[in-house]
C-alpha cells in the first residue's frame, strides 16, 4: 500500500524508514508550505486550530501523491486533537477520495484497537511481529538521534559567527540521517552530524539570553507552524529550550520516563485538574524554567486552542509570582513572519534590559 503520515518537525525522516521497512511504499508529503495552508484552511472548519488545518492540507497533498492510507495519532480528549482523525476522514470522504485515515489511540486506553490496527498494517505489508520489533528499534534510534541533533543545533546557533550557518548545516544533517539505514550507520551518521555542528565557527564570548518555550506540542515541534521561532530567536543570539521533542513525548506516553510529573507537581498550586492537551505542562514548565534561571518564557499556542487559553489565564499570575516575563503567541493562518519577529525583538529587548538592571544592581 501507499502509506503516508503527517509532517511534524524532522520526524518524517524516521517515519519514512519505518513505513518502508514494514513493507509499504512511503508517501512523504511535501513539507508544509503556503499551498498546504491554503488547501487546509479551505476544507477545514473555520475555528479548527492550526494543527488541524496544516494536517488537512498535508493529507490532501499526500492524496495527490497517491496515498491510500494515512497513519496518524489520536487521543481521548478533552483536547480536540483526539477527534481530528474522525473529522479528517469525513472531510476526505466528502471530497470524494477513498483514502483511509488510520488513527492510533493511546495503547493503554484502547489496547485491543491499537493492536488490531497495527496487525492490519503489518499483515498487508507481509511483516512479522519479530521483524517489526527489529525495525522499531532501529527507527527509534533514528528518532532519538534526530532529536539530539536538533537540540545541539539550538545550542550552537546563538554562538554562530555567520548568521544562518547552523540552519544550513542542520539541513545537511537531515539529509545525512536520511541516508543512514542500519543501527551502525545511524550511530555513525549521528557522530558525523555532531562534528559538523560543533565545527561551525562560534563566538564563545557571547552570553546568550535563555528563553524557555512552552505550549501545544504540534506548534512547538513543527517549524512551519511556529514560523521557525527557535531559529529566529537563535539568530538573534538567544538560546532556546523547548518543552517537548517527539522522542520525549513517546517516552512519556509509553511510561518509559516521568519528567512530566515534575511539571505537573510544579503546576499544582495553580492548576490541579488535567485539562487536556499540554495546558498543565505549560503552567508547570514555566515555573520550572523560572526556577532554573531562564530569562523568559514564550508560550506557543494555536489560535482557539482551549487548554492553552486556560493556561494563559493562569500564566499571568505565575509570571507575577515568579517574576518571569511570559510572551504568549497565538498562531493561526494569518500570523505573519515579520509581525512575529517584531514581537520577539521587543521581548528580547525587554529581557536584555532586565538582565542588565539585575547585573548592574549586583555590582553596586
Amino acid at each position: 500500500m501507499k502509506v503516508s503520515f503527517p509532517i511534524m518537525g524532522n520526524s518524517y525522516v524516521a517515519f519514512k524508514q519505518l513505513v518502508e521497512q514494514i513493507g509499504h511504499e512511503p508517501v512523504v508529503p511535501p513539507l508544509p508550505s503556503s499551498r498546504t495552508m491554503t488547501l487546509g484552511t479551505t476544507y477545514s472548519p473555520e475555528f479548527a486550530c492550526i494543527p488541524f488545518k496544516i494536517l488537512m492540507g498535508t493529507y490532501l497533498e499526500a492524496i495527490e501523491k497517491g496515498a491510500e492510507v494515512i497513519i496518524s495519532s489520536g487521543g481521548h480528549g478533552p483536547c480536540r486533537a483526539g477527534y481530528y482523525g474522525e473529522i479528517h476522514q469525513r472531510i476526505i470522504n466528502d471530497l470524494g477520495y477513498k483514502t483511509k485515515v488510520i488513527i492510533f489511540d493511546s495503547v493503554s486506553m484502547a489496547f485491543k484497537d491499537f493492536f488490531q490496527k497495527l496487525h492490519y498494517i503489518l499483515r498487508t505489508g507481509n511483516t512479522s511481529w519479530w521483524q517489526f520489533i527489529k525495525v522499531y528499534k532501529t527507527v527509534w534510534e533514528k528518532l532519538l538521534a534526530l532529536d539530539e541533533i536538533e537540540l545541539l543545533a539550538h545550542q550552537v546557533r546563538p554562538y554562530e559567527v555567520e548568521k544562518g550557518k547552523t540552519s544550513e548545516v542542520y539541513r545537511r544533517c537531515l539529509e545525512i540521517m536520511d541516508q543512514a539505514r542500519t543501527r551502525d550507520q545511524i550511530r555513525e551518521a549521528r557522530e558525523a552530524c555532531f562534528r559538523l555542528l560543533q565545527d561551525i565557527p562560534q563566538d564563545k564570548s557571547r552570553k546568550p539570553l535563555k528563553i524557555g518555550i512552552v505550549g501545544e506540542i504540534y506548534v512547538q515541534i513543527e517549524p512551519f507552524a511556529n514560523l521557525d521561532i527557535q531559529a529566529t530567536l537563535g539568530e538573534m543570539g538567544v538560546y532556546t529550550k523547548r518543552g517537548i521533542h517527539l522522542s520525549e513525548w513517546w517516552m512519556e506516553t509509553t511510561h518509559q520516563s516521568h519528567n512530566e510529573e515534575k511539571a505537573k507537581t510544579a503546576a499544582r498550586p495553580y492548576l490541579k485538574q488535567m485539562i487536556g492537551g499540554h495546558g498543565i505542562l505549560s503552567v508547570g514548565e514555566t515555573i520550572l524554567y523560572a526556577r532554573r534561571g531562564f530569562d523568559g518564557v514564550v508560550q506557543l499556542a494555536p489560535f482557539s486552542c482551549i487548554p492553552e487559553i486556560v493556561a494563559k489565564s493562569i500564566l499571568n499570575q505565575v509570571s507575577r509570582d515568579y517574576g518571569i516575563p511570559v510572551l504568549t503567541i497565538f498562531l493561526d493562518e494569518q500570523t505573519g513572519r515579520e509581525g512575529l519577529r517584531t514581537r520577539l525583538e521587543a521581548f528580547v529587548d525587554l529581557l536584555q534590559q532586565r538582565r542588565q538592571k539585575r547585573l548592574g544592581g549586583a555590582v553596586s
Partner: protein
Amino acid sequence: MGVKIGFPRTLFYFIYFPFWYTFFTGLGYEVVTSRPTNKLSLDLGVQEAVNDACLPIKLYHGHVAELKDKVDILFLPRMVSVRKLDAETFCPKFLGLPDMVRNSIAGLPEIIDEKVDLARGFFPLWKLSLKVARRLGQHREWDVWRAFVKGKAAQDNYIRHLAAGVLPQAAMETAVTGEPLRMPEIPRADLDLAILGYPYLVYDSFVNIGLFEKLAQMGVRAWTVEMVPPHRLEAQGRHLSKQLFWHFSNRAVRAAFYYLTEKRVDGIIHVTAFGCGPDAMVDKLMELEAKNRGNVPYLTLSLDEHTGEAGVLTRIEAFTDMLRIRRREHESVVSHHG
C-alpha cells in the same frame, strides 16, 4: 443563618440549578444568583477574563464578578463528568474554570469548587453532595439526605418539563417553587426548526438576542436538544464510531441525529459561540450529516460579544424565507405530477 451562597446564572445554571438551589435552601442557606445576563455582566466579563476566551467563559467571569461582593460563599463546581460514557468530560475551559476565575478576578470570597465527577464510584452524586455539605460545615447526614432527595426531585421535575418543551425560566420556577405550571401557548407555526447548541447559548436570550421570540414571530416552532426524549437521545450514539469528548457536544450531536432521522425537521440552526473549540468539530459533523441525510438546510449562527440584533434577524429571516421557497417549489413539483 443568613449565609449566602452565590450561583452564577450562566453555563451549567441552565441545566443543574434546580438541584443545587433546592439542596442548599434545604440545608438552610440563602442562594443568590447573579441577574440574567446583561450589558454589565458582559462588560465585567470582557474586562476580567483572558481576552482569548470564548464568550460563555467571559460571561461566567462577568457573573462571578457581579456576585462576589454580594455573597459569603461562591459555588463554582468544577464540572469533570456527569455520567459514564467512554472518555466523556467537559470542555477543558470548564475543567480549569475555577482556576481561571481565581487567577483572573481579585477579591473573591470563599469558593467551593468541589469536583463534579460522576463517572466514578457508587452513588457519586450523593457522595458529592455530602462533600459539599461538609465543606459548608453540615455534618448531620440525615439533614443532608433530606435536602438531597428534595433536590433530586426538583431536578427530575425540571428535566421532565424541559423535555415537554417548556423553556428553562418557566420550568425552573415550577421545579423550584412546586407551583403548577402554566403551559405556554403553542404558537401557530408552519416551520419546524431544530435549534441546537449548548444550553447557555440557546437559553440565554441576552446572548442570542431573543432568538426564540423572533422565531415564534416568524412562525417557527423551535425544537431543542432538551426536547428530545432522553432515551431516544442516548440511542443516537450508535451513529458515531467514536463519541465526542464533551458532554454538551455529545448531546447536541445526538440531537442532530434525532432530528435528522427520527423526527424530521425542516432545517437546523446551530447556535455557537465565536471561537468555540469543541464546536469546530461539532459544527462540521452536523453540517456533513445534514448534507448526507437528505440535504437538510443547515445554518450556523455564531455569537460573540459584538453580535447585533439586526445581524441575527437578517440571517434567520433569510433562512426561513429560503425554507418556505424551497417548500413551495417542492409542492408545485409534486402537484404537477399528482
